[in-house]
């Protein structure tokens, strides 16, 4: 009888602990999910940064705004800045021309 009581006590304690672990796990998962939701919501929301592309051979700037998120046509920040970096490269290459040490946009047997 004593043995039976001991076993049932162990079982109850075990189940209670497991339940509390499950609850904590569930709570953490919910927190994680809400954080992820917040992050994805902020990713979805359109955001913009102003920038200036410097053309070193003329000493002039081209001002531009780069956006990402919903409605901008660019999904992520990473993609948006990669596009703008490429634009800046092209601008330098095509304005400063060939053999300037900055680009071959208008040269090469391409």
């Amino acid at each position, binding site marked *: 009888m004593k043995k039976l009581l001991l076993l049932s006590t162990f079982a109850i304690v075990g189940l209670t602990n497991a339940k509390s672990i499950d609850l904590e796990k569930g709570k953490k998962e919910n927190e994680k999910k809400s954080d992820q939701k917040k992050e994805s919501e902020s990713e979805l929301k359109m955001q913009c*940064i*102003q*920038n*200036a*592309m*410097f*053309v*070193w051979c*003329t000493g*002039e*700037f*081209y001002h*531009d705004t780069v956006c990402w998120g919903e409605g901008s046509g660019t999904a992520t920040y990473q993609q948006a*800045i*990669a596009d*703008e*970096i*490429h*634009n*800046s*490269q*092209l*601008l*330098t*290459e*095509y*304005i400063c*021309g*060939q*053999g*300037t*040490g*900055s*680009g*071959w*946009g*208008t*040269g*090469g*047997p*391409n």
Partner: protein
Amino acid sequence: MRFYILFSILFSSILYSQSDSLKSQYEVIYKIKSFNDTLYKYNAAEENLSLLIKGHKSLFRSTQKAISDSIAMAIGKKSFENPVDGKVILDMKNVPGVYFKSEVFSDNGKQTIYKELMRNRFSFPLEDPIQWKIGNETKIIENYSCKKATGKYKGRHYVAWFTEAIPIPDGPYVFKGLPGLVLEVYDPSDNIHFTMVSFKKVVKPMTLMKDAFATKYSTFYKARQNSIDNAAGVLSNQTGITLKPADIARINSNAKRNNNYLD
């Protein structure tokens, strides 16, 4: 038993995914020397180009391109992370230029050419492979005995020197299909000249140009012609940047200086 089945499925899928990414066995480095304006042969442009070979497949491209792109990204990302008075300043002065932007992928002799025009990328099959004529002349290049071959590509004659000591029917750009590796190729006016610099066993990933629009040569040719005739307009259209009048004139003038296309 179930564990073993699961393990073998997992292992084979890992193996399959690894075989999906092509890696080279050999790398040939060539140097290109060419003039942008064949009427004004001053200061030839030079750049190292890489031919990665794996069995019957090869990829030819500039060694400078990946370096240039990664430097541009590093400079650009740093600028975005460190705005000056709340504004990002992008300065690409220190990004090394890329001279040779074309790439060629060859699979069992079937060649695909990849081209870049500003932000647009094109890919098209080689429609007119060079019909080589092998001559009797020989010469030594880098200790390899080479035979002479002549052929025509897009209206221009070329002389190629290939070695049967390296029985790989490959070479720079579209100059392939000879019974040995091409070590040197040039046009008789020497406007374009490829020379082998090294040949080594090298394992490198052979990654194709991404997001290329698959088309025909004629479509690419029209697009390139348009980007020469109206360079500033095309640049403005592709980047969304309104150019200043002085820069429009400058860009259009720069674009018309080049008359030495490899096609």
